[in-house]
């Protein structure tokens, strides 16, 4: 990225000064100089376009892991006020609505799983439907699917896929309100018929990890994390239904924007005022898709527990937290000296409530919300805690992943899937996938340095590091 146009506010925040005659909201990028320099120029172009959207409150922001997306950059955060003509954008949420990470803590240690690692990898791979064309065993009738659309993870728990305690540690207690199943097309519903309890492909994964390092003892205690402990992380989203909702509304919102006279800097920012019929229709359908994602991760949690329970019948496997990173949610925030209901888009960004936030479960109230930065399959992931400072800086938002350092095509030219898997196996990381193409695209070298992203996230005051997790087994689609 050409950083010469940017003005440094401090070591990890930057703004883009207005040009003469330019009219837009503020742009704010959070990253250190090295991460910023490595970002694609498209990030600044896209976040500047977001800053031109009506009803923006505060700055249009890019997180330290930001990279070129569609409409919004991935790692983009923007809040809109419905009473000031604020908009909701399908591009600001993405196709994989409510894609996110479920983190499970166990009372197992690295030593416990050492002898069973191969069996565990094979069994997880056999039990978790992953990859293009794979279907799950749960087939829902249209009526049952409507229950999922309104019930989310609560529906899954009612059906026996997990425990009531899980819900306490899922955003919105596992059920997003405001879902309107009637706003979800029949095709979207049909696409979900075979896809409940499936992982998908691309950057989605189910990993068995161990805690390599504790960075914040106090928060780690609150989160129930200790060095050497086994963690299971599940990264996936709303599958075919969410993709179709994104598809359906991307085009209809683009047309609505033209009809409503919204002067969009780029058509891919397809949006409508939150208080318009089109905006409300998308919101209702998106909320329904969020519930599909929450239910999906709950089912995958159940499947993972079943496999782990086979090898370790006495193991305790509890939900640490479930956080989405592709959403637009109504939230109360202090801004301009008053409390306001804002619609916060987080496209590839994680909500990060600070200590004391009423939306947090009691157990985490003092420490702040668990924030998960998923890394590549060869490096590791971070658990962080939300900060009070983040509320003022970024409407309580933080990074969501390492972020890609190169395109998938570049990665395909540089690596062979088999070679990536063998190299990682030699390092004690067992990869299970049907897609050699996927393994090459997801090579660890194709991602940014997750340490640098987590450090910049902390230095920017968005969240503070609690623990670093390294992968032992990774199931990829």
């Amino acid at each position, binding site marked *: 990225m050409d950083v010469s146009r940017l003005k440094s506010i401090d070591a990890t925040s930057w703004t883009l000064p207005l040009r003469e005659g330019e009219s837009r909201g503020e742009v704010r990028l959070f990253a250190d100089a090295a991460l910023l320099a490595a970002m694609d120029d498209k990030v600044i172009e896209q976040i500047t376009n977001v800053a031109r959207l009506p009803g923006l409150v505060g700055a249009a922001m890019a997180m330290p892991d930001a990279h070129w*997306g569609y409409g919004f950059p991935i790692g983009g955060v923007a809040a809109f006020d419905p009473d000031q003509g604020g908009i909701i954008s399908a591009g600001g949420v993405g*196709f994989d609505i409510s894609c996110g990470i479920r983190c499970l803590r166990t009372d197992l240690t690295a030593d416990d799983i050492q002898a069973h690692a191969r069996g565990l990898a094979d069994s997880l791979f056999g039990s978790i439907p992953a990859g*293009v064309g794979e279907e799950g065993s749960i087939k829902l009738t249209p009526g049952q699917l409507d229950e999922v659309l309104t019930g989310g993870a609560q529906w899954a728990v009612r059906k026996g896929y997990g425990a009531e305690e899980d819900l306490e540690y899922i955003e919105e207690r596992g059920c997003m309100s405001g879902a309107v199943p009637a706003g979800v097309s029949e095709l979207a519903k049909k696409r979900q018929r075979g896809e409940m309890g499936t992982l998908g492909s691309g950057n989605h994964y189910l990993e068995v990890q161990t805690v390599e390092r504790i960075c914040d003892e106090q928060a780690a205690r609150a989160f129930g994390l200790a060095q050497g402990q086994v963690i299971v992380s599940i990264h996936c989203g709303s599958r075919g239904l969410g993709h179709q909702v994104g598809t359906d509304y991307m085009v209809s919102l683009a047309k609505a924007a033209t009809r409503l006279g919204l002067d969009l800097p780029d058509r891919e920012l397809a949006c409508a005022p939150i208080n318009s019929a089109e905006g409300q229709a998308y919101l209702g359908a998106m909320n329904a898709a969020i519930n599909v994602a929450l239910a999906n991760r709950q089912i995958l949690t159940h499947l993972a527990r079943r496999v782990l329970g086979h090898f370790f019948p006495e193991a305790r496997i509890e939900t640490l937290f479930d956080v989405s990173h592709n959403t637009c949610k109504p939230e109360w925030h202090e801004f301009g000296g008053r409390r306001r209901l804002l619609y916060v888009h987080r496209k590839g960004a994680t909500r990060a409530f600070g200590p004391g936030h009423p939306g947090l479960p009691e157990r985490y109230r003092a420490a702040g919300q668990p924030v998960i930065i998923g890394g590549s399959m060869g490096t590791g992931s971070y658990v962080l805690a939300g900060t009070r400072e983040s509320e003022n800086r970024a409407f309580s938002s933080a990074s969501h992943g390492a972020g890609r350092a190169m395109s998938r095509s570049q990665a395909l030219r540089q690596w062979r899937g088999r070679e990536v898997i063998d190299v990682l196996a030699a390092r004690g990381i067992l990869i299970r996938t049907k897609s050699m193409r996927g393994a090459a695209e997801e090579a660890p070298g194709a991602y940014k340095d997750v340490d640098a992203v987590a450090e910049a996230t902390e230095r920017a005051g968005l969240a503070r590091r609690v623990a670093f997790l390294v992968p032992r087994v990774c199931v990829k689609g």
Partner: protein
Amino acid sequence: MEAADVYFEHDADIGVIGRGNTVEEAFVGAARAMFAIQTDLDSVQSIEGIEIDFEEGDLELALVRWLNALLGASRERAMALCEFGLARKGSHWLGWARGERWRAGLARGTEVKGATLTMLSVLHGAACWEARCVVDV
């Protein structure tokens, strides 16, 4: 396997390109490029067919709708697609595709979630029509 020149760079996702003497041919090429991300098209048997039917006056949006309609129909039927055809009369588009249900022997690539409005263009260049957009994977 599709040639490398039917793809273009995007940080997180993949850009697909279709070329042809007509818009319809270019759209068919873009569909081939997109479905080749998911599997090796040469391995897919032409056993079952699907039909795509839509109204769209905007050429660029028509490309997105065509690709997304194919994705939707293929996922609904759990099919891998390998052959495509498209005809247009005014703003009415009538397309078809053939392929088979996913089976164990088909290579698994990367799942495509949807065609986006990013880098979307349908243009007549010096020699042919070219249709391109970024697909989300």
